[in-house]
């Protein structure tokens, strides 16, 4: 069972985007960092264990060409082997900062290129893979940036072609050390999932087609892909083969966020139906098939949830943001 903890107030309300909450757990000093997109700005704040806010900072989307102030699509911390970077994607480009948001170390402007005026141009979908940071685009392309151990010498190393519609989310997990092991999944607005193996050159291993609804959020854990869809379903696939193993009619509205507690294999799903559900993933003893069990459901009344994350690696606490809500709601298990 979970109980409501003290909420953390935000300076600006959360925008109705998917995956609109990023959490960085810092073992040192027991601090937790939160990142929420408001619209043209994003708010970072750090809080002590009881939820007492300690410091906050607002970041703006970098201006570029265009009529109206640019909107941020996502903010996300990327944990790399030797450093942590904060990445901000917007309708103008990609901004990378030191983890506390104090210094911008890299700016990549979007090239509207061959988009007709009819399409919206933006970057969306952020994940760290080894010493790379991967960012998705409105065109379906995924940009791969090579990040040095320190300093601003960040280089665009590759542009992955796999999607034809805007990328929604990217999930990664540390490579398990064997060959041909999938360690990255990208998702898009058509519901298509692309499964990759990272490296100096990323390799597309398999594709999992959509079925007419967007896939706004995706996670990867021990070779299992968890994908949340616009019709409220969560589907679990075997990453190496793309085979569907579990289909959950999980929510009554579009799923907006998924998160994982990797230490225990817990999956969090949140949707606009005001519910947050926690699931336990496992492999069956015979055959090693993917199995799932429902652990807990929490209703956040009258809240159009737009972001949700575990706040600790064992999945015993989580945080939620809602559209137009100027606070981060926190829950922890009793």
């Amino acid at each position, binding site marked *: 069972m979970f109980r409501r903890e003290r909420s953390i107030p935000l300076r600006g309300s959360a*925008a*109705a985007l998917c995956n609109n909450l990023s959490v960085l757990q810092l073992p040192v000093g027991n601090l937790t960092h939160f990142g929420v997109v408001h619209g043209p700005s994003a708010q970072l704040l750090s809080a002590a264990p009881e939820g007492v806010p300690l410091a906050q900072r607002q970041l703006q989307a970098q201006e570029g060409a265009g009529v109206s102030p640019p*909107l941020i699509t996502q903010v996300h911390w990327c944990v790399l082997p030797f450093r942590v970077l904060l990445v901000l994607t917007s309708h103008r480009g990609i901004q990378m900062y030191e983890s506390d948001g104090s210094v911008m170390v890299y700016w990549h402007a979007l090239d509207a290129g061959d988009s007709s005026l009819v399409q919206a141009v933006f970057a969306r979908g952020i994940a760290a893979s080894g010493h790379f940071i991967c960012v998705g685009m409105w065109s379906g392309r995924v940009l791969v940036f090579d990040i040095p151990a320190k300093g601003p010498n960040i280089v665009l190393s590759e542009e992955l072609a796999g999607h034809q519609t805007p990328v929604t989310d990217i999930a990664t997990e540390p490579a398990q050390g064997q060959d041909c092991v999938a360690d990255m999944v990208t998702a898009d607005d058509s519901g298509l999932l692309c499964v990759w193996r990272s490296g100096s050159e990323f390799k597309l291993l398999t594709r999992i087609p959509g079925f007419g609804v*967007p896939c*706004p959020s995706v996670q990867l854990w021990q070779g299992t892909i968890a994908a949340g869809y616009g019709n*409220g379903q969560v589907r679990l696939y075997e990453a190496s083969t793309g085979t569907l193993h*579990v289909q959950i009619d999980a929510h009554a*509205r579009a799923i907006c966020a998924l998160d994982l507690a990797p230490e225990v294999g817990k999956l969090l799903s949140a949707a606009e139906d005001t519910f947050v559900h926690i699931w336990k993933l496992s492999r069956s003893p015979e055959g090693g098939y993917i199995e799932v069990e*429902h652990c807990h459901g929490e209703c956040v009344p009258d809240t159009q949830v737009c972001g949700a994350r575990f706040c600790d690696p064992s999945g015993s606490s989580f945080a939620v943001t809602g559209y137009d809500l100027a606070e981060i709601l926190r829950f922890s298990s009793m």
Partner: protein
Amino acid sequence: MSVRTLPLLFLNLGGEMLYILDQRLRAQNIPGDKARKVLNDIISTMFNRKFMEELFKPQELYSKKALRTVYDRLAHASIMRLNQASMDKHSALYTTDAIKGFIQDSPNILHQVDETFQQLTEIYGGLSAGEFQLIRQTLLIFFQDLHIRVSIFLKDKVQNSNGRFVLPVSGPLPWGTKVPGLIRTFNNKGEEVKKAEFKHGGSYVAAPKEGSFELYGDRVLKLGTNMYSVNRPVETHMSGASENLAAQTQESIAPNPLAKEELNLLARLIGGMEIKKPSGPEPGFRLNLFTTDEEEEQAALTRPEELFYEAINIQATQDQQTNEELARIMGEFEILDQPRRSASKGDDLLAMMDEL
């Protein structure tokens, strides 16, 4: 942000405005032919072909400041927040259905509306769910932080007293969404090997059928229909809202030249504004958006100082011949009994929008 948002926003807000005006006209017993004329004129202007052409061009949404100024009173009557990506399409259609109801006696205007409908289905019919999700997110950005409470919503328990909308955890699901609760497990060959249930916490039912996108069809949903069609007193509470407005005006009080320019563009597109002096033997009529005159005065008093725009008088059309040259925005109303003060064209537009 999506560049396909403006037509939906304009049509939905315009439709909502028509519902309110229709209700007020009936509540104040304005003679039927006059009322119909007023609505016909507005609709004819809204659906003017040239304006629609401009509107449907892919473009970024007008800044919140600009459109908010224009649709100040209208924004809080919109039920946009409750719409799902798939429901947005239906909502625009429903509004069009109701608008057609208003103008059923006028074949010309009906034709204009049908043409617009065709354009709507052409453009939006082909959009994917993902594109609709983006449109919806763009629209929600527009309405973020408004928090204006509306009596009819509070009465119907659709909105809480803190301004947040009620999100029921029961009722029909969107077309294509299954009732939550089932976990199905498959083996490598795709055969179902296990079926389990979990308690999901709500009490939903599947949608009976998909709504129709045809010119005339069963829409299935109620979104977009007229909340005021049931006869009831409609109060427009300013007391709670004015605090919000005051708070908002504090932060955005700096005059925005861009807003004024955008509004002037809107005015040019619609054909500009001609304010006619009262003429002819028949007197114009006065439309009160509040239930009583006292409430109206009260609202005027509690209104934040900063929002006091110059008011203008607008007379209802009396002359049949002026119909053709009518390209006025939302027809002509005499809203408040205030003498007209001189103002530049941009301010006129702002003032007139606001007085509606």
